[in-house]
């Protein structure tokens, strides 16, 4: 018997059918997803051990320094039994300090920064830890509803040990007044789970005379106990 991944509690992950987020209207499936037991296909997944570095500095690109407020983001990746997940691939992307992505379809009338690409790939260390230095992303408008603005955020993509633990999410910043108004953030039904996407300012992560530090831990699915080992 295979020990599968534990199912998420209701309300943790958003439902795709979320009317306040207009793009879901034509894209959310209408039929129920069919629950399947976990086989080798679900508990296995790709490994990226040899690919990227253990840390990244996004504040310099193409021979110059990016504009904006430098910040440090650090944390650990765990499973929900509290076990560190080493060598997990984290892929990051974000807008620049002016709220503009270095992406051809981003037409927001804010300046691009030639010294900021806003992307990185890192691996967690032996204790699941990660750290990167970046520029605090700006808020930006989107056309979901009149005068709609996304809160400042950094996109995270994570590969844990199995494909069933795959996660793409967004990290937010404490005290952002746009969070209360954001249909994407508020698509998470459970308010306690929602708060877990807000990073924490932390003086220990802050580097004197250099940059403020934010702590953001990420928890991926843990495993069911193996039958017979309960």
């Amino acid at each position, binding site marked *: 018997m295979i020990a599968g991944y534990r199912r998420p509690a209701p309300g943790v992950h958003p439902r795709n059918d979320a009317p306040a987020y207009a793009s879901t209207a034509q894209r959310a499936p209408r039929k129920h*997803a069919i629950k399947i037991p976990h086989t080798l296909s679900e508990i296995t997944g790709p490994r990226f051990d040899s690919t990227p570095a253990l840390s990244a500095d996004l504040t310099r690109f193409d021979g110059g320094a990016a504009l904006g407020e430098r910040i440090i983001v650090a944390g650990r990746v765990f499973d929900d039994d509290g076990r560190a997940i080493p060598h997990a691939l984290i892929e990051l992307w974000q807008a620049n300090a002016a709220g503009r992505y270095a992406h051809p379809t981003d037409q927001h009338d804010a300046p691009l920064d030639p010294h900021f690409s806003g992307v990185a790939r890192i691996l967690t260390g032996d204790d699941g830890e990660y750290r990167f230095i970046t520029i605090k992303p700006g808020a930006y408008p989107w056309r979901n509803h009149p005068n709609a603005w996304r809160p400042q955020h950094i996109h995270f993509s994570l590969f844990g*040990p199995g494909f069933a633990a795959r996660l793409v999410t967004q990290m937010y910043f404490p005290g952002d007044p746009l969070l209360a108004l954001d249909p994407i953030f508020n698509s998470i039904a459970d308010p306690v789970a929602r708060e877990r996407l807000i990073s924490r300012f932390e003086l220990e992560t802050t580097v004197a005379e250099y940059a403020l530090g934010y702590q953001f831990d990420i928890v991926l699915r843990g495993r069911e106990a193996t039958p017979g080992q309960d």
Partner: protein
Amino acid sequence: MSTRLTPSQTVGPFFGPALIRASDGRMADGGARGERIVIEGRVLDGAGAPVPDAVIEIWQANAEGRYDHREDTQEKLLDPNFHGFGRAGTGASGEYQFHTIKPGAVAGEGVALQAPHINVCVFARGLLHHLMTRIYFPDESAANSADPILNLVEPERRATLVARDAGKSSPRILRFDIVLQGDHETVFFDV
């Protein structure tokens, strides 16, 4: 049940520079063993419109039916030239493409074998949580009828999970459209 999990959020529209590299869709370039195949298709929304900002990830066993992963302890050969993961973004008409090999059958529960299949994960703007599905093969009808996962699907919807042969070509081209919503909605799995 998991209670401390980090919630999912949409991949949004601006993931390209971070996630998409053309080489990630060419999985058999390193001399992998097995039948070379091309998997291609379109991602369509509930209005039948193309979804030009989706990411498709696939994860599959090698030609012997073994996953390159420490938890796959089946007595089958690993292929040092095939690792089983691919990723592609969709283009303006919603199309995606992978160059890979046909996977072998892998173990299911107990003694049951699963029919050869490719695991698929779909991300897009407008999807707050990724969708999981599977691609099965049109030349495996006996194995498909015995597949324990396909058999969890209502018979009239199973065809959405079987790729179509796109005519004679070498390598073989298999079409697999992913319909997010509507009458011909692809079957998605709660994994």
